[in-house]
């Protein structure tokens, strides 16, 4: 594996790789990285030009505080540890993908702008990230209607060659991923935790090695589950897809609700909500907030779902603005 100096610098500055959670040395947040990226761009520098610079050089060229200059230089000195960890991860089938690389998902750049994660880790076929597809979201615990809808969306992706985007978690995600793979579809799981463990599961491993799957995360590949991470992750599911289908949501609580209202507000893509007599309260409120309705029993054969969605959008099209720098 070859890694560009630009990516090296971004991994050193912006990722948790080679650091523990409780370490004093903290990587840069996006809020810190974005202004730095703009400065580099004004200087006509690339991130890789930072490698090997010592604190006083950094302070002089970047006009940052002494404290930050020291911190950045310490982060940049982690090259040895980074190389060792990246090699270990590559052996497990896990690779980094930074915002500076051309194969970083364009949809993140376009839709998330400055809040597009600086560093991603993925396993499997990265070409799938951002290919036409449907995002499915919903709770981990489902009723029968929810289950059959999850399966339906998975089948739909399989039949029509669309990518199924999900959080790769239990419940909706697992059911729809299984259905998609059984129908020779493609899946992308945007994980909030343990990329390392997820890709070990035999049911995903063969899809990963055949190129039918990609698991991606903006957290450390060995990170454990945290609620905050799951919340922050949802937008990364929506912003890869053409349509989102919300199977079940609570009201005013939980990741599904937070993600769905954010998606509706940001207008990244048309959002559909499963509508049926016994639907959870959250679905009802989301519909009233302007989400499109996907009625149950489902109106079409799975193979025709995409077509049906195309014809049933009532909300406005997403608009475009300036995408992020590196």
């Amino acid at each position, binding site marked *: *594996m*070859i*890694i560009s*100096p630009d990516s*090296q610098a971004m991994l*050193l500055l912006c990722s948790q790789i*080679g*650091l*523990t959670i409780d*370490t004093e*040395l903290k990587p840069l947040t996006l809020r810190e990285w974005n202004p730095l990226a703009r400065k580099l761009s004004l200087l006509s520098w690339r991130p890789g030009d930072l*490698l*090997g610079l010592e604190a006083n050089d950094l302070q002089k060229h970047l006009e940052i505080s002494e404290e930050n200059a020291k911190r950045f230089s*310490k*982060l940049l*000195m*982690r*090259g*040895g*540890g*980074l*190389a*060792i*960890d*990246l*090699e*270990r991860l*590559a*052996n*497990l*089938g896990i690779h980094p993908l930074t915002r500076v690389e051309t194969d970083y998902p364009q949809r993140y750049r376009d839709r998330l702008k400055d809040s597009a994660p600086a560093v991603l880790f993925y*396993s*499997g076929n990265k070409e799938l990230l951002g290919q036409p597809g449907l995002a499915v979201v919903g709770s981990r615990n489902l009723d029968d209607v929810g289950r059959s809808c999850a399966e339906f969306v998975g089948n739909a992706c399989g039949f029509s060659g669309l990518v199924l985007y999900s959080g790769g978690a239990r419940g909706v995600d697992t059911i729809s991923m299984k259905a998609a793979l059984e129908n020779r579809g493609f899946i992308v799981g945007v994980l909030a935790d343990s990329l390392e463990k997820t*890709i*070990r*599961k*035999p049911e*995903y*491993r*063969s899809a*990963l*090695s055949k190129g039918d799957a990609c698991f991606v995360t903006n957290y450390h590949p*060995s990170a454990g589950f945290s609620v905050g991470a799951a919340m922050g992750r949802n937008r990364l599911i929506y912003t890869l897809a053409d349509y989102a289908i919300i199977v079940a949501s609570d009201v005013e609580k939980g990741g599904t609700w937070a993600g769905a209202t954010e998606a509706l507000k940001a207008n990244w893509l048309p959002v559909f909500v499963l509508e049926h007599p016994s639907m959870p309260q959250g679905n009802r409120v989301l519909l009233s907030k302007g989400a499109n309705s996907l009625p149950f029993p489902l109106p079409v054969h799975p193979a025709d779902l995409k077509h049906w969605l195309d014809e049933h959008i009532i909300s406005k099209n997403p608009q475009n603005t300036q995408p992020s720098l590196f």
Partner: protein
Amino acid sequence: MDKLKIKALYYLQAMLGANCQFREGQWEAIEAIVVRRERVLLVQRTGWGKSIIYFLATKLLREQGFGPTLLISPLLSLIRNQIAMAERIGIQARTINCSNLKDWSEIEESLRCNICDILLISPERLNNSHFVQKVLPEIAGQIGLFVVDEVHCISDWGHDFRPDYQRIKRIIQMLPPKLPVLGTTATANDRVIGDVVSQFGQNLTVLRGPLARESLRLQTIRLQNQGERLAWLVENLPKLPGSGVIYCLTVPDTERVALWLRQNGFQAEAYHAGNDRELDRPALEKAFIQNEVKILVATVALGMGFDKPDIGFVIHFQRPGSVVAYYQQVGRAGRALDRAYGILLSGAEDDDIQNYFINSAFPNTRTMLDILTVLEQNEGLGFYEILSRVNVTPSLCEKALKLLEVDGAVGITRGHKSTYFRTPNRWVPDTVRVERVLNLRRAELAQMQTYVEHPGCLMQFLQMALDDPSPQTCGRCANCRGKGFSSEVSQELVKEAEKFLKGATITIQPRKWLPKGLLWDQKVIIPNDEKNAEGRSLCYYGDAGWGKLVQKGKYQDERFSDELINASVNLITNNWKPEITWVTAIPSRRHIHLVPDFAQRLARQLNLPYLTILERINDAPEQKTMQNSSMQARNVINTLAIIHKIPDGPVLLVDDILDSGWTLTLAGYLLRTNGSGNVYPFTLAQATGRNA
């Protein structure tokens, strides 16, 4: 002289003494690392002072605020006098390995407090998740200098193949610029150096010194059989100066040679890494260094990092597999002496043993694919779970898993029991590479064969084989001087040695466990009253002594000779003396009469009844085709049956060749659980290949 060099010289003198100056190349290497922060390849013979380079470079880098040095070496620990030397300039070195678990938290603490300056690890540790996720973060991954010891292993053309060095190669490619790397090796030919250069990239400073060993007197002597060589040792060891090492190729050979020498009045001890007998190797090394033991009879386990300056001679009882291995081993002699001897004895068995090593160097593709298939069907499997599903020897299985792990096809989670799992990475067998390595081994072997017959200067031969830039005739070897030790040995002594070889006590240790996966998932202890007693074998298969006769009896005559019967009777009645009341034999479908016929004749000579008790109930594959305990045991238990009533007295259970020991263990188990008394196993020979 610039300030940094003055400082470096000051530290050098603090380590080695007031009048010490830099050797040619030493300062250049330090300067490239510390000032230009570049990469350096150091090819210098052992004892040149490679460690001085990284001690001084570490000291100077640390003073500039850089992180500690990571020293990657197959050696498990720094040599004690090296640590003492480093401490003189305030360098703290620590090592993390699997044998010092209790020290880990202290070492992690010393990294956290930034007082550890050099961390020594084995290449395997680079892939250990604890190391990567707990230890390295203690220094936030801020490694100041990478040192790769035995760096020739990065190259496929290197003389020893260590899969984990592939990992180092990939890590080096991902290191950012301005992170200095030092690669060191004692021996690398042009091709290996070229390979390392291409891996390390531009800006690589290569420092390469001459290889000649000025005090060494080389000689080669051909003596076909072991008896002659044993006799030669007894006749010639008294003529050799000081203490020395005798290298053998196999563990049983070291034990046998050491025993023979002790019986002839020499202070000799065997030194090896065999697991049959736990050796206190550090104690042996110490006794040898202090000249309390005059002769170590060693396998290659006595290797890198062992440093005794006054070794007077290195004798090879058998011929090593390559010039590099030979040069390194013989180069241990005479480091601080004016005169030392390197004598290569070689004999008939050398090629067989070397070919065995070469052929078992790599697991075959079929095995690798079989392992991947069982791992693909499961989320994770333990080592023994893999063994019970794949027909492969434990050692080849280990090798296969290691190769697959380095190739990224298999991952490991470590715990009290390691679990192997399949990664999503594709794996295609690299047969071209395997063939290349094997061909290289064969070529190296051929070169060594040439060395034995070489009529010219032997030192020059070694230098040229290693691409030394300035090979010269030495004027000291037996060929240069036209005289050396005689290859003639007294026939009387040879007879005695042959008698010794034939009379050696070779025990069969009873197996204590039934393997995992046979009856239950777990290993099961065999209760004492169902376990075999300790048994005996007459010889090692194929060895000088009786070994050749066994081979001839089994595959040529299909009948074991009376000579073997007499030798067996002699061993049983005069030497071993087990209390037995009857004799039985292990049946075979392939050689129906061979063993029963031998056992019957043996019983007649022992004046004991012979009874046919066991029978093969169906055609089992030959036991030797079963590659591991689980498979072997299952193969036996499915095919052995008791067909007659068993007398209750103790019994001699006879077989021809002991391989895994499972046949005897399970046959004994069947006999005991069906009413017989103690079971004493006896075989004509033991196969040595697996234990070599």
